């Protein structure tokens, strides 16, 4: 019997039992819909991560880690004394407790010589006492001093310099209101940052405001308003020196930051830096991206697993439908066999029917998923602007995988009914009145 005739016969039978076929197809369709949507949301998330996180300039951080342990490794004795460790500090580095040896300017120089590295600077840990305008006496707290010379940031007034002078400073928008000065007027004003030196004396360093940074606030409104400033590397070095001169922390840094050239491969640079020194532990955005992608993948697969359960339930529907079909068509099968249809052809007839249900269901589900994608991405267009423009991105690859997967699942579901049909004795079938 020709394959096309077997398929025609199968389709005819599916059409004969319209309502039953429709119900089974719906069950598969709903499973396929959730599966395709889940994969689509996963794609959108991944797309967002890849375009937004990876596009910003890549800065890697380098620490000299002597010993690292994850929070899971509980120790029940204190560490043995070792003179080499005397200089080290224990910090929490990216989720694990690490014993870090301080880096020095020698390390900065060594890293600067690596191919693909644009700028290297220590991650200056500066604790400011206060900030005030030169022509005002009121001092305000300053929550953070950022060394931010490697990326653009949007300003409401002035500029965000790409080449920072020693006295350049960009302040957060909040300081305009704090100082009671118009944002535009703030640019060009002199500002003073007070820092405690080793003796506990306050040292004031003057800066000139070159820009007022726009701050987009996320999350719930905060009880205490905080403000930060941005300064260049050289200025940060100066402040750090004031703070640490004469202390044991002078010229010592926990972490060194290196900006990777835009055309260089971050992973290669990381590998090169790590090869310089056994203790160098390097962390970059590529690691963040791959970590985030792993998390998103994990969530996507977990959610897809739930759709998978729905699909397994739906596959029982196929088994049930096909078993009923075999039972109903006992005489037809008997006749076809008596007239010379081979067991193999009978088995194929029922397998094709099962596969058809799977493929039709998958197609319906996919079509619906596309509908949901268009609806969500259009209706929530404004809300999705900051999210890469799409909450769902269905890929052709996923669709093909889902349809093929469901065809396979349907085929497997059809195995038992098809075998039952194949094993039917034509005489017994024809004897039934």
């Amino acid at each position, binding site marked *: 019997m020709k394959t096309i005739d077997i398929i025609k016969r199968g389709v005819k039978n599916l059409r004969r039992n319209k309502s039953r076929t429709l119900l089974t197809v719906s069950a598969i369709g709903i499973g396929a819909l959730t599966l395709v949507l889940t994969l689509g949301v996963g794609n959108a998330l991944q797309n967002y991560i890849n375009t937004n996180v990876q596009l910003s300039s890549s800065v890697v951080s380098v620490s000299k880690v002597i010993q690292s342990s994850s929070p899971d490794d509980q120790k029940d004795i204190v560490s043995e004394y070792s003179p080499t460790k005397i200089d080290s500090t224990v910090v929490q580095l990216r989720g694990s407790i690490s014993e870090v040896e301080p880096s020095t300017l020698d390390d900065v120089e060594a890293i600067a010589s690596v191919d693909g590295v644009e700028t290297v600077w220590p991650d200056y840990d500066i604790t400011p006492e206060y900030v005030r305008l030169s022509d005002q006496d009121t001092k305000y707290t300053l929550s953070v001093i950022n060394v931010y010379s490697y990326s653009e940031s949007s300003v409401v007034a002035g500029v965000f310099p790409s080449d920072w002078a020693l006295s350049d400073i960009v302040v957060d928008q909040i300081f305009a209101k704090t100082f009671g000065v118009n944002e535009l007027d703030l640019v060009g004003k002199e500002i003073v940052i007070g820092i405690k030196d080793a003796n506990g004396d306050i040292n004031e360093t003057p800066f000139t405001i070159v820009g007022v940074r726009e701050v987009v606030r996320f999350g719930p409104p905060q009880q205490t308003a905080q403000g930060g400033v941005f300064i260049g590397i050289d200025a940060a070095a100066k402040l750090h020196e004031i703070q640490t001169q004469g202390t044991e922390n002078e010229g010592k840094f926990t972490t060194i930051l290196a900006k990777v050239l835009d055309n260089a491969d971050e992973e290669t640079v990381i590998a090169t830096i790590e090869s310089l020194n056994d203790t160098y532990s390097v962390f970059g955005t590529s690691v963040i991206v791959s970590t985030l992608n792993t998390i998103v993948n994990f969530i996507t697969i977990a959610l897809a697993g739930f759709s998978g359960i729905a699909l397994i339930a739906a596959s029982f529907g196929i088994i049930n439908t096909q078993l009923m079909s075999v039972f109903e068509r006992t005489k037809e099968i008997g006749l076809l066999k008596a007239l010379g249809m081979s067991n193999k*052809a009978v088995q194929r007839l029922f397998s094709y029917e099962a596969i058809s249900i799977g493929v039709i269901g998958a197609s319906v589900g996919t079509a619906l998923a596309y509908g949901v994608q268009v609806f969500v991405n259009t209706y929530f267009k404004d809300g999705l602007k900051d999210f890469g423009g799409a909450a769902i991105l269905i890929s052709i690859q996923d669709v093909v995988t889902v349809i093929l997967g469901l065809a396979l699942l349907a085929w497997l579901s059809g195995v038992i009914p098809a075998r039952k049909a194949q094993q039917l004795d034509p*005489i017994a079938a*024809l004897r039934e009145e």
Partner: protein
Amino acid sequence: MIEIKNLNKTYGKGNSAFTALKSITVTLEQGANMAILGKSGSGKSTLMHVIAGLDRPTSGEVIINNVSVWAMPAKKLDAFRNKTIGFIFQAFFLQNENTVLENVMVPLEIRGVPFSKRRETAIAALKSVDLLDKMNNKASDLSGGQKQRVVIARSIVGDPDIIFADEPTGNLDSVTGGIVEDMLFDLNKNTKAMLIVVTHDDELAKRFDNRIVLKDGEIIEMVGKGVTS
């Protein structure tokens, strides 16, 4: 020519074993017609099924046109049945939701004949049973006599060497039954296909050139020139 050699068929095993056919040996000449006569449970349907390649005998041989039917592998046997044998059933076994034409085409569909050829042959078969005007009707719309004529068309569409009919007039009144009978005998004459009919109807059996009578799975009477043991 059909040669049946020492055919035995037993259902079940041990104490519950039931012997349906006992040492049946019979030869039917090429082109002949024959009635297998017997009461209910005499084994006549079983014999037909065994000869037609539907029911495997416990022992013995069926040789049709010098081919040993039960020595063939299953797939070959299916093809053999499709090509060599036409079936007429008392209960018709038509697919009611399909058209008359579609029903008649089934044997050719199974054989893998292209659609246009299939249709052409089926129309010719319907013409010979005088049902051409009903070819696009659903099988369920036909009367009993018309249904049996469709079944006859289906049995001859594949140009078989032997047509087996199991109580072909059992479900019909005497007038339509007579028409169907005449049609079967005409076919036997005109197409050279052998005709083997299973029946419990003495009157019908008498119209055949040859007949064998079965009782409890054994041949108790054999009549006709074309049939020898």
